[in-house]
């Protein structure tokens, strides 16, 4: 049981380049999230998904797109990277049961846009 994994761990892009970040979870969770974390700040929600085939915008969605074609995978795309998108990106999946609501986070992807 690997939990939540993210690929890649590090990436450097030039302004205008595109890339896709992959998040995978093996816990059969319906909900998945993409956050970004900037120095000295908390996590900000970019996009989320409440199930396979669904996506929705979070707090800071501009410049990003997502897809949830398979339940276990949640992809985050940057179509034209900008220096303002330099950040650490975290993916999470969520388990909600009667007594506990828990998000499980991946190790993060550190992205630098030059």
């Amino acid at each position, binding site marked *: 049981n690997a939990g*939540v994994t993210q690929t890649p761990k590090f990436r450097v892009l030039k302004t205008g380049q595109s890339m896709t970040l992959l998040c995978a979870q093996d816990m059969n969770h319906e*909900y998945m*999230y993409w*956050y970004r974390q900037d120095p*000295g*700040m*908390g*996590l*900000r*929600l970019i996009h*989320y*998904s*409440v199930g396979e085939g669904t996506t*929705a915008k*979070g*707090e800071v969605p501009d410049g990003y797109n997502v897809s949830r074609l398979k339940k276990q995978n949640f992809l985050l795309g940057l179509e034209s990277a900008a220096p303002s998108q330099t950040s650490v990106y*975290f993916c*999470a999946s*969520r388990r*909600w049961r009667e007594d*506990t*609501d*828990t*998000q*499980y*986070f*991946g*190790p*993060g992807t550190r992205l630098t846009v030059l």
Partner: protein
Amino acid sequence: LAKTTQPISMDSYEGQEVNITCSHNNIATNDYITWYQQFPSQGPRFIIQGYKTKVTNEVASLFIPADRKSSTLSLPRVSLSDTAVYYCLVGDPRITGGGNKLTFGTGTQLKVEL
């Protein structure tokens, strides 16, 4: 979403009990209170969650007064490895449409020294 306020930083020594208080004056009736821990270069990790009164697990205790306008995370006998950022979150896990968009603030940086 209920806004939370917690201290920016706290210092402690090994073996001491640490109490971190979070204020959430406009908490809603169905909101739960959740605490996460984040080490440098890692994603946040669930610590504890509660609705009212006191909750205890193998890691921490969560004290919630009757009015639920604040909560206190208690870490017994901290060690150097407890140095981390601690986030207090408030939200209703049953809001499926919103995907339970929990707001991570800047958290409390706990530093434990010898």
